[in-house]
């Protein structure tokens, strides 16, 4: 394999979090590798792993690249891992969806949209680092503002927030 391509693959493999192209550019600084070249290698790798159809593939997620096991194998991997993580409750998921679409958003607005108190699901989301405090709104009382985290993108396999279906698309589902 081309050495640069192998290095890129190794970096993605070694990284704890999805590896951003910017980061790769930075690491290759002295070699003066262009973004285009890096992107070409990345696409090459993505296609290669997809075609190979092995145990894992290369994905673009949360603004970077990461190897992930193929979803078809989830039952097998679960056998290896034993206990499964606790799934989010409906309340937490609804709260998360509202924050994802309306961010930056204050708690009162989330509660207006859900029609119920969201203290508990909000705390769960904060603890799981899916949601974070992003600051205060410049209105009387200066309420805290919430937004989603990078981990939110990682957990739900999203490249970025624009990958979420639009509100229009979601409303169409209602009809």
């Amino acid at each position, binding site marked *: 394999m081309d050495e640069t391509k192998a290095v890129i693959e190794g970096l993605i493999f070694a990284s704890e979090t999805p590896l951003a192209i910017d980061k790769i550019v930075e690491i290759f600084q002295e070699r003066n590798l262009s973004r285009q070249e890096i992107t070409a290698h990345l696409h090459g790798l993505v296609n290669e792993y997809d075609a190979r159809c092995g145990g894992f593939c290369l994905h673009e997620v949360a603004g970077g690249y990461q190897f*992930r096991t193929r*979803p078809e194998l*989830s039952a097998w991997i679960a056998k290896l891992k034993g206990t499964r993580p606790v799934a989010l409750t409906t309340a937490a998921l609804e709260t998360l969806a509202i924050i994802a679409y309306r961010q930056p958003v204050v708690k009162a607005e989330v509660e207006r949209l*859900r*029609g119920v108190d969201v203290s508990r699901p909000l705390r769960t989301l904060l603890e799981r680092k899916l949601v974070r405090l992003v600051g205060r709104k410049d209105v009387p009382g200066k309420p805290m503002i919430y937004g989603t985290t990078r981990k939110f993108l990682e957990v739900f396999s999203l490249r970025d927030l624009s990958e979420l279906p639009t509100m229009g698309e979601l*409303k169409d589902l*209602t009809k």
Partner: protein
Amino acid sequence: MDYEVKLDIFEGPLDLLLYLIKKNELDIYNIPIALITKQYLEYIDILKTLNLDLAGEYLVLAATLVHIKSKLLLPETPEEGEEESDPRQELVQQLLEYQAFKNASQSLQAREVLERDVFIRGAAPAETPPADYDNQAWLEIGLFELVDAFRQVLSNLGQPELMKIDLDRTSLADRINEIMDRLRERQSLTFTELLNGQRERRLVIYTLLALLELVKQRMIRICQSGPFGVIRLFLAVAVEEEHG
């Protein structure tokens, strides 16, 4: 009416209302308020008889429904130049929005969820090299973790400590840090210099409070050159840069 549906499956009053609309196959844009109000109130009654902890939000929506119903019963008397409005409109809007977010949460669930459908490399990272702190990214701690850590500390101490901190306290800390910084740059400052010509009430008050706190903590000294003379501030103790 069949009550086989478990009541605790509802995520709130809007969820219950959406359920009733779907169950009766009603048009969300043209809800027969009388019917839906009746059924909604019946559910509320069941919740009460089952002695479930009925959240206040359910009662608020019940009141809203009754209010809309009464408005629809009254003959319309639109004022001059005012559009005739459907009293159901706001509620319909709210329901549609809530339904859209419910769909959004389901579409999130339908994605490839990490550690449910897909897994990342499991092996522990290699040895961590000595960190270069100035170049560190700080992604792994957020404000919530900080606040939670403080809560943890306080919860080991008991109630009285809990009440001592508020917004003013932290604004004061900002001002104290600022004053100490400026005093370290220049050996002394006058009170007027400290205010920089700013006359904003809040700032003046915080500056005064900060000075009182600093004197109380014996971090600065304040001297006046005779009655009505210039007030000067000094560091009480020279500060060395090192720590130990």
